């Protein structure tokens, strides 16, 4: 049955895809042995399908999830209290790519009548896309978002011109840039790019847990925070190549220098200290509430969606 | 079983059996059929093909229920299958995935005999039907007549109190048939079984039976009953040359001929 880790320091964390660079810290922390150093017995589980992870956490199958922060807001709207304890990134790490078949697209304003690739209609890529478009003066319905998943299917969709532009993450970005099948329109892997695009930082990848579990296991969570913050520091102070060194090679066996390039381009998205960036939550809320009808008319207490208590205590 | 010690082995009282024919309306196979088989009695049934003989036997076994009328076995109305009955089917009903001997052993094993016992008596019976050498064959490796003999062994081995046989010897050559007749008579006299024996071979019927029932062309009812009082024990091989025997067969033949002609007349119509 469902296992809730008691006082014992055995914790399971569900990662929304080990090999995804946006979730880099999870595997890296393990690789660097930081969990052990904290005397933690952490089991990382792989679950690329996104939202199933939350359900499994709420059901007590796992204690923590490494995923996008916006789920904390979603869940609060549904009356489930989940908070981000370590904020990995301050930018979504997503990039809006434009198919090289369509150089006419110069800005989101040109999305009119286009099909835009997103990973899934329920996913944050979708809301970000819609937000960008609307922010640039389009109306919903003037463009279509097409769920094409990530990876090969995304590439295929672009090759088949099923989508003229689309939002995705590494390593798909690097692949498409490398083959020259697409060009970057909006780069949200960096603070600056994100600020420019969304008008603020956009906290994305994070470790979040059920609030009551956190309150019940403060010291364990503290140790987790220590480990992850150390990891973030490592990322901050090392080059892509050095980081790649530490990662399991299966993750970049496809194309090594691509992976490193992507890291160098993308590692800026990670916070140095795991602290929730100022104004970040607000940006997310505005983006979401603009399009997610589950959120509209709901009162969201952002302060309950994250805590800096632990990361602040890391010395 | 303890209903009435004296009750006849089989009673069919005004029995009818109808089937839904494909054209939707019901077809009557047996109408107002009445027949009584006493304990230890040997009854032969002859009748035009398709008149309703097998159906009748099915009613006695309890494999089928009458549409009307009543069937009683050993004085008690038939419900479900009665283990005291043995039935040699007209059509092949061996278990193809069992060897000959396993087929013969089936009955005893079902009835809770030990494997050793079952095997022993199976061997014995296979020898009696002349298939000792084919113990390990599977049914599809046997000839038609051999399969039939396996079926006979399969039934005889259970020493049934009531023995129903549907054209059991038709696939056997004359001499093998004679041997089987002797086995049958032995079993019958030893076990004091009551036998209902369906056949198309008048001489066989007369040679074996106490009573010969002649059925009408379908729907089957009893046309006439002949009591054969030839002395027992009978030596089937020779009896056929006795005068009284020949007389019997002449009359029954004539009687039957009528029926078949009517049935043909009707079929033609």
């Amino acid at each position, binding site marked *: 049955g469902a296992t809730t880790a008691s006082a014992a320091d055995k914790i399971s964390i569900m990662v929304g895809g080990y090999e995804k660079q946006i979730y880099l810290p999870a595997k890296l922390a393990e690789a660097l042995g930081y969990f052990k150093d904290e005397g933690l017995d952490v089991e990382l589980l792989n679950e690329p399908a*996104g*939202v*199933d992870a*939350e*359900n499994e956490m*709420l*059901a007590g199958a796992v204690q923590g999830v490494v995923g996008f922060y916006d789920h904390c807001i*979603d*869940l609060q709207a*549904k*009356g*489930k209290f989940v908070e981000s304890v370590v904020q990995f990134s301050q930018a979504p790490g997503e990039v809006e790519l434009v198919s090289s078949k369509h150089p006419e697209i110069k800005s989101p304003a040109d999305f009119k009548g286009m099909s835009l690739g997103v990973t*899934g*209609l*329920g*996913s944050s890529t979708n809301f970000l896309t819609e937000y960008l478009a609307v922010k640039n003066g389009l109306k919903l319905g003037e463009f*279509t978002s*097409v*769920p*094409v*998943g990530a*990876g*090969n*299917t995304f*590439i*295929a*969709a672009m090759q*088949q011109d*099923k989508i003229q532009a689309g939002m995705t993450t590494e390593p798909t970005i690097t692949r498409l840039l490398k083959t020259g099948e697409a060009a970057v329109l909006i780069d949200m892997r960096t603070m600056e790019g994100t600020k420019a695009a969304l008008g603020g930082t956009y906290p994305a990848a994070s470790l979040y847990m059920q609030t009551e579990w956190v309150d019940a296991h403060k010291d364990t969570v503290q140790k987790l925070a220590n480990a992850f913050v150390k990891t973030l520091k490592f990322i901050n102070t090392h080059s892509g190549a050095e980081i790649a060194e530490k990662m399991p090679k299966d993750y970049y066996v496809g194309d090594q220098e691509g992976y490193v390039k992507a890291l160098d381009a993308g590692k800026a998205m990670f916070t140095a200290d795991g602290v929730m960036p100022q104004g970040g939550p607000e940006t997310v809320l505005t983006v979401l509430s603009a399009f*997610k*009808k*589950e959120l509209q008319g709901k009162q969201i207490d952002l302060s309950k969606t994250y805590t800096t208590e632990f990361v602040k205590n890391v010395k | 079983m303890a209903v009435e010690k004296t009750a006849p082995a089989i009673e069919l009282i*005004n029995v*009818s*059996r*109808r*089937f*839904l024919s494909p054209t939707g*309306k*019901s077809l*009557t196979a047996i109408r*107002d059929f009445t027949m009584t088989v006493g304990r230890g009695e040997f009854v032969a049934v002859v009748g035009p093909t398709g008149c309703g003989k097998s159906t009748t036997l099915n009613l006695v076994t*309890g*494999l*089928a*229920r*009458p*549409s*009307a*009328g*009543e069937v009683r076995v050993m004085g008690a109305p038939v419900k*479900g299958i009665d283990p005291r009955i043995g039935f040699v089917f007209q059509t092949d009903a061996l278990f193809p995935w069992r060897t000959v001997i396993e087929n013969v052993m089936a009955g005893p094993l079902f009835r809770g005999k030990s494997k050793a016992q079952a095997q022993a008596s199976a061997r014995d019976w296979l020898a009696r039907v002349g298939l000792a050498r084919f113990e390990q064959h599977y049914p599809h490796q046997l000839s038609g007549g051999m399969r039939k003999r396996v079926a006979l062994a399969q039934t005889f081995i259970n020493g049934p109190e009531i023995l129903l046989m549907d054209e059991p010897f038709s696939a056997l050559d004359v001499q093998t048939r004679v041997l089987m007749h002797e086995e049958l008579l032995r079993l019958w006299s030893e076990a004091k079984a009551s036998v209902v024996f369906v056949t198309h071979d008048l001489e066989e019927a007369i040679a074996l039976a106490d009573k010969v029932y002649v059925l009408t062309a379908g729907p089957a009812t009893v046309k006439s009953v002949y009591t054969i009082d030839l002395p027992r024990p009978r030596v089937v091989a020779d009896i056929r040359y006795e005068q009284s025997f020949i007389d019997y067969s002449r009359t029954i033949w004539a009687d039957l001929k009528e029926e078949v002609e009517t049935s043909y007349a009707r079929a033609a119509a």
Partner: protein
Amino acid sequence: MTDATVNISTASFRPGTSDAEIEAAAAKAAAHRRHAVIFWRLAILIIFLGLWEIAGRMAWIDPFFYAMPSTIAGRLYEWTTQGTSEGPLWYHLYVTMEESVLGFVTGSVAGIVIGVALGRNRMAADIFSIYIKVINSIPRVVLAPIFIMILGLGLASKVALAFVMVFFVVFHNAFQGVREADRAMIANARILGASDWQLTRSVIVPSAMSWIFASLHVSFGFAIIGAIVGEFVGSRYGIGLLINIAKGSFDAAGMYAAIVIVMVVALGAEYLMTLVESRLAKWRPQPLHETQ
């Protein structure tokens, strides 16, 4: 197989009962049976839903995960009346059905044809069936993206997925069904002058029919699954999409509602298939333990 051949051997009558009476009685018995069946089916359904609802309200199970019949019904009502956030429900249903039906038809036809062909040709069977069996063990979820790369995001890729769900089940049964065909009958047909093709058409296939149908019964469900798996990976419309969105927004009711729709459709398909089957099987004797 079916209720087609009414069983008049259950009742017992005094002599001289007219056929009419007997047939009437038979019809009555059959009707009575049918009612009992329907009653129990409903009873089970209601009890199940009832327990579910109560468990939800009593918070024995968390409706957040498992929803409740009432909320599911609500969502269904909403979808049917106002349509879904992604457009009218009927259209999604239509899309999924189009994919499933196409996949089902192509898959079963291919399965039957190849199954029969290999069943008739021992050598070919020995050579190819091994590959068919091995390919069957490839997870369909893995095939999904590959198909999408090859066939694009449109109808084709979903149909292909439904196809691979259906094909193997049908193939195996058709194949075995052919192998089981009665030797005597085959011999007889040949003697009567049947060409290879006539033999296959009028002896092999009919005697493999019940095998084939047995597999078709499972297959339609599988076809739907295939289509939905495809829609998961990437699609603009379809029940799969609805399920995905519902999950994405922690909308358990929505997810179960979508599943209910799938089930209802499957039920309909099942009903049709049974109709066809009972037509084809009207020659069969009733199983013995039903004639008494």
